[in-house]
């Protein structure tokens, strides 16, 4: 009854909310575009374009890392998973956070000390440049495109809720599906502008603004949820469990991952899938190109360390908020209302905002206002993350592929930056096209796939490069291509792509790999391939390793 009333209220306030969401979003776009244009005037050299002039402080970059990392997957996806499946959504938060220790202890400072603009700078440091840079560039683009699709799908899922487009109704003459496609194209076009015009400096400021907005929005909602339960976590959990209709099981692992099934083999696969997801989450972060390039935006490795510490604090706090948001949505919105809007749960957080607004900010108008604010924040989130991803992959195309492989190191800075801008256009266009085909998948889940690909294709090569003296060109190529190909092949033949109701191609079935996350197989393959590739090659440049090791540990000669 109560939810029915809320639904009616929502109908009445749809137009208020719609106008407000669009207004707020346009304000965000106007502010960030102004920043972008300002940043473009400061962008003169390649270092400005790729690394924001290395001028950011630890705190600024920590915020920007948070902005790059707290994607639609974190905000919409995890909150949605917790709202629908309870505790299992929390597994994502934990994996995503613990992963930062890999980046802090093993990667960030050494990468900053020995590289210039891209991940490949470190991978190719003591190797033959052209093959290794080509491989690193391919893997950067593949990981980024997986991640981009996840963000764009999030934008598509949001739009019909935000604009209040129900079945059989239209907005500006568009039905829900057309509006989704239009949103994806709009988001894609904006991200291209940010990247092409603002470079790393503009993109970093966009991340910072977005991180502040997202943290504030999540904080307000968390406080409202907790206040509703008189700051008693136990009664929030109790109500969430009751409203979910699943009872105590809602608060325990096992509703979504590692589900017990009638056939023993299915239970086994289901548990393996959980372990696979866990490994991919924790090892993926330090292989994400758009995160790695963030370490180059600060002057020294020590400040890179500081920025990771800030990032861990900000991201950890945010994931604690998502716990309240997810359980809050389960309790106050309810699973039925959430799945009615979006089957994968991606709209749980904005729906919670609306419910909270109705209760605490003066009825239906309040609901419309809070929904509009949170929706605009979510759009800002998506926009900022896609910009970061596009920047990282276009940088790799220009710096690694064009300058080193095509021009053999003879490209001028101007030329390189020009190519980076063209590449941003092309990658943006590819991402827009692919996103239109992946709309039924949960956003957090898509990001987990990107993490698996990054952990398989990039992380083994990065760790071997930094810490293994014997690692060589052949090893690097084997590690990158081996990890990358095994991850992608396994995803392609998994139930995510075909052979299940929620697959990208639900009507076909060519799957033979039983797990939906490939990490548990493909990450060890990446490490194993790196080792095999190294030992079968005679190349052994220990002198060059001396240079890499001395520079990466001391910061001597850092750019």
């Amino acid at each position: 009854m109560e939810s029915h009333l809320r639904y009616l209220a929502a109908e009445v306030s749809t137009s208020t909310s719609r106008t407000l969401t669009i207004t707020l979003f346009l304000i965000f776009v106007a502010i960030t575009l102004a920043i972008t244009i300002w940043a473009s005037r400061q962008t003169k050299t390649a270092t400005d374009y790729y690394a924001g002039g290395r001028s950011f402080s630890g705190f600024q970059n920590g915020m920007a890392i948070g902005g790059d990392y707290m994607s639609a997957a974190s905000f919409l996806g995890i909150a949605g998973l917790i709202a629908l499946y309870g505790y299992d959504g929390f597994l994502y938060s934990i994996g995503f956070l613990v992963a930062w220790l890999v980046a802090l202890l093993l990667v960030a400072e050494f990468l900053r000390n020995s590289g210039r603009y891209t991940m490949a700078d470190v991978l190719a440091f003591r190797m033959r440049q052209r093959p290794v840079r080509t491989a690193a560039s391919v893997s950067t683009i593949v990981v980024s495109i997986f991640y981009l699709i996840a963000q764009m799908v999030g934008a598509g899922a949001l739009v019909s809720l935000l604009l209040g487009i129900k079945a059989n109704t239209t907005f500006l003459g568009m039905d829900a599906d057309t509006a989704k496609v239009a949103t994806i194209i709009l988001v894609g076009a904006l991200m291209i502008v940010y990247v092409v015009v603002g470079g790393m400096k503009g993109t970093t400021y966009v991340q910072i603004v977005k991180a502040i907005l997202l943290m504030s929005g999540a904080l307000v909602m968390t406080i409202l949820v907790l206040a509703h339960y008189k700051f008693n976590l136990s009664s929030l959990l109790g109500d969430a469990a009751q409203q979910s209709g699943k009872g105590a099981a809602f608060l325990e692992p096992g509703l979504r991952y590692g589900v017990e099934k009638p056939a023993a083999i299915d239970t086994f696969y289901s548990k393996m899938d959980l372990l696979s997801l866990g490994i991919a989450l924790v090892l993926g972060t330090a292989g994400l190109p758009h995160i790695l390039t963030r370490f180059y935006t600060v002057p020294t490795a020590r400040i890179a360390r500081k920025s990771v510490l800030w990032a861990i604090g900000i991201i950890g706090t945010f994931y604690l908020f998502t716990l309240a948001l997810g359980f809050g949505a389960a309790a106050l919105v309810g699973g039925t209302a959430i799945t009615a809007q979006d089957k994968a749960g991606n709209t749980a957080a904005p729906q919670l905002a609306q419910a909270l607004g109705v209760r605490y900010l003066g009825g239906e108008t309040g609901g419309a206002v809070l929904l509009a604010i949170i929706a605009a924040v979510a759009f800002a989130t998506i926009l900022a993350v896609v910009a970061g991803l596009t920047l990282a992959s276009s940088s790799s195309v220009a710096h690694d592929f064009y300058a080193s492989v095509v021009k053999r190191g003879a490209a001028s800075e101007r030329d390189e930056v020009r190519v980076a801008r063209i590449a941003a256009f092309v990658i943006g266009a590819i991402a827009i096209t692919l996103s239109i085909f992946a709309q039924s998948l949960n956003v957090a889940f898509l990001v987990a796939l990107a993490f698996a690909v990054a952990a398989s294709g990039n992380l083994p090569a990065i760790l071997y490069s930094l810490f293994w003296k014997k690692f060589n060109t052949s090893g690097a190529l084997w590690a990158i291509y081996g990890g990358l190909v095994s991850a992608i092949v396994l995803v392609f033949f998994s139930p995510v792509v075909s052979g299940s109701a929620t697959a990208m191609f639900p009507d076909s079935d060519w799957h033979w790999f039983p797990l939906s996350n490939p990490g548990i197989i493909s990450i060890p393959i990446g490490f194993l391939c790196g080792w095999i590739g190294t030992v079968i090659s005679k190349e052994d440049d220990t002198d060059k390793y001396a240079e890499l090791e001395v520079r990466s540990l001391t910061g001597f000669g850092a750019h």
Partner: protein
Amino acid sequence: MTTDVPPTETAKYVAVQQSAEFLELRKRLRSFVFPMTIAFFLWYALYVLLSAYARGFMGAKIVGNINVALLFGLLQFVSTFVIAWLYSRYAAQKLDPIADKIKDEMGGM
């Protein structure tokens, strides 16, 4: 620039890499980050394994509706914050001074 004939770049790096100071830096770094990485990875793996295979244990209630699973998850947050803090302290005390010293000496070579 120094007045001496500079050694080749490569020879310079090899010499530094084999110097007692650098070996000490590497030892200090690796003796912290490798065991710590193994430790947090095992601690996290334990959490994931318990989530998969010890449902009864994870579902046990501690206070009200707060169960072992939630507490275990929150402890992962705590351990992450603590390890990050320990590393920053260790690095500032044990790694940075020696790295600076090596870097300064190299600048004069």
